[in-house]
């Protein structure tokens, strides 16, 4: 790690006093927001599944922070990642802890303005701000960061954060279904593997990697079970499910899997007893677009599910939620070579990130959406974009065209990392839901 006195490429010099002040204020707000969000989730679904209690606890950053800190003291390394292209299996196989370090704090995005202009994606700004005052425990604890060069913001975010930590950039080919892209990406996977091995000092061997892959496969299994349960009459509110998915980004994966399976057991029981989280005729909404990160950037799901008329999120296409775990690593033969190939393919080819293009454009994402809309019986799609998120904003036109053909209403909702537009957003979301309800009545 570089010393503090070293000249920073990007980060401004801030006095320790200011840092402490800001951190205390924002941390207090953050704690309040977490409590408030959970409180509101409880209020929406008064009979919330009991298994959700665990996720409420882990959603509070302090709990897991203590664990990771203890693990770090016992010699474990923590490896952070920004985009979900980081090969988690390799991190796990090297006995390190993977955490996702993207930040969802609104307040820190204002701090980020000191480094980059406001036009830049607020998630990037927020992460910069969080680093400035040391707010995000996971970002602080991570020994190295894996930065996949997806969108422009993420590419440069890695560069900016390299002021503090070693950042391993992974070159992501933008055209994914060609043999040469895969070759490049597999090389990147191997390079990251070497870097992980060098950092942790643990050699990744066949046995450990197999174990790690099985671990994430089990997590995917639990995750898919939860998603399947959301198909059909709503047994769980969308926000709760999103929180479950989100906690995967920092939780211990084995424990997460167990708890999610327990949650699914409970939900299955409820489905049999026909205990619904909300009336079964509630409009079924799907969100797609820019990722929404806990705790602050939770306003859209909250608005949808607390609106009058109410809507329920039954699916989403966000890299902070459903796309995290949807695809399993499919291993043909448990040799090192095949496992690495399988990991490479799972992260590159199965992803429907909007940063990809091909001869047919980002056909995979369109197909993913179409499939979800049909199978999950979605009545309306909210296309959520934060200002500065070019790639998702651009793809809106195509998504709208495709969904129009299916006669599924799409609503483009652009916003910022701010609480100020909640009132205005509420009006927009409620109008959309009203329209959906009217369509159902017809």
């Amino acid at each position, binding site marked *: 790690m570089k010393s503090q006195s070293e000249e920073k490429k990007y980060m401004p010099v801030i006095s320790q006093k200011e840092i402490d002040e800001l951190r205390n204020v924002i941390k207090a707000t953050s704690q309040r927001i977490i409590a408030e969000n959970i409180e509101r989730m409880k209020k929406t679904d008064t009979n919330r599944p009991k298994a959700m209690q665990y996720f409420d606890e882990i959603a509070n950053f302090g709990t897991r922070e203590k664990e990771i800190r203890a693990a770090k003291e016992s010699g474990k390394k923590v490896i952070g990642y920004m985009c979900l292209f980081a090969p988690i299996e390799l991190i796990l196989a090297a006995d390190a802890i993977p955490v996702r370090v993207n930040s969802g704090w609104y307040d820190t995005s204002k701090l980020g303005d000191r480094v980059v202009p406001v036009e830049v994606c607020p998630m990037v700004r927020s992460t910069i701000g969080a680093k400035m005052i040391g707010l995000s425990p996971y970002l602080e604890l991570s020994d190295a960061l894996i930065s996949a060069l997806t969108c422009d913001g993420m590419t440069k975010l890695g560069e900016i954060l390299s002021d503090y930590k070693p950042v391993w950039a992974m070159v992501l080919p933008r055209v994914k279904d060609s043999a040469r892209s895969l070759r490049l990406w597999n090389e990147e996977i191997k390079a990251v593997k070497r870097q992980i091995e060098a950092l942790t000092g643990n050699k990744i061997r066949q046995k450990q990697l197999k174990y790690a892959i099985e671990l994430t496969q089990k997590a995917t299994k639990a995750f898919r079970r939860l998603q399947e349960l959301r198909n059909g009459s709503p047994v769980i509110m969308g926000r709760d499910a999103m929180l479950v998915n989100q906690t995967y980004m920092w939780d211990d994966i084995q424990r997460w899997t167990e708890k999610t399976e327990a949650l699914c057991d409970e939900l299955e029981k409820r489905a049999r007893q026909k205990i619904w989280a909300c009336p079964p005729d509630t409009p079924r909404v799907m969100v797609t677009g820019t990722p929404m990160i806990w705790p602050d950037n939770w306003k859209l799901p909250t608005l949808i599910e607390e609106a009058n008329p109410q809507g329920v999120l039954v699916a989403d296409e966000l890299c902070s939620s459903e796309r995290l775990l949807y695809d399993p690593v499919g291993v043909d*033969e448990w040799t090192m070579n095949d496992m690495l190939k399988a990991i490479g393919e799972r992260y590159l080819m199965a992803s429907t990130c909007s940063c990809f293009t091909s001869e047919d454009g980002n056909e995979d994402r369109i197909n993913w959406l179409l499939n979800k809309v049909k199978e999950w019986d979605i009545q309306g799609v909210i296309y959520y974009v934060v200002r500065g998120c070019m790639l998702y904003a651009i793809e809106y036109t195509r998504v709208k065209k495709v969904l129009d053909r299916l006669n599924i209403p799409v609503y483009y909702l652009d916003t910022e990392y701010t609480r100020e537009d909640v009132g205005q957003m509420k009006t927009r979301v409620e109008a959309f839901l009203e329209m959906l309800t009217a369509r159902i009545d017809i």
Partner: protein
Amino acid sequence: MIMQLIGEILKLTVLAGLALAGVLVILIWKKGLATKVTYLRFIIQVVAMVAIFYLFTYPVWQLIVLVVILVMPIVLGRFFCGWLCPFGLYMDVITLIRKAFKIRYRNLPDKLNKFLHNFRYVLLLVFLILPFILSLIDPPSTLEVGTLMALLFAGPFEPLRILLGPMISLIVPWEGPLEICGLYFSYPYVQEVIYYSSGIFVTINALIFLALTVVGSFFVRRVWCRFCPTGSSIAILNRLRGFKWAPVLHLNKDEEKCTKCGICKRVCPVQVNEVYEKKGGRIMTSMCMLCFRCVEMCPYEDCLKVNLGGKTVFKSRNWLEPSEVE
């Protein structure tokens, strides 16, 4: 005499057992219990190998097998290659051995694979024409049509044996074209190799061929299937316009459910890219030998389907759903 009788009874018992096993397999399939196609395929391959071994002990049956492998593919495609061919089983066993040693497989470059795929037609043609050329060099004593026909189908050249090549039992200690250290070996295509060699080259050529196929299939999955002349004879018929409707067994892909994760492409033992590249609908390529490994490994429910005459017999499942994770 008594020994022969016992032998015959033994044969019949084994055949009956195999039939029973076959029925069981079908029942398991019907009940949807066959979650792992690979295991099922292995059972069927073993059953088929033993069955073909027994059939080959009677010359009449050879003809029947020949008819079967010529007629069946018209409707079932290369199902034979993936599920019944003994040589295929043999290569699969070698693959298993490789897996046990945890040695990686190699892929052939796509271009070479394509070339080999087309090369098998040349191979077939050569094997079919060679007997004619040889008969011109060394003309038979009588030149009646009947004799020529007999020469073509059952004579010393036996060009149609090429089609039966992969089905020649692998090791028959008491008879076989190749003798090494007093043990007789029979090996797919070795008979042909020997036939076209002469003198001391007979054993050497046969051994070279044997070594090549063993080493080849150790490092490359199903290496022979990529240019097997039998496979091409199967495919030729389906290339004809009149037979396009005929294959009732084929793969179907649902475009919208596919995320292009590439698993189907990677797990394919003969490196077929069509399943991955095709947008959706029927997958018709004579490269595919319908082993359904891709369907088994596809993690998206209903994305890949195996249709048999309009009915779905097997489809990709969310294989994480049942406790399948080994």
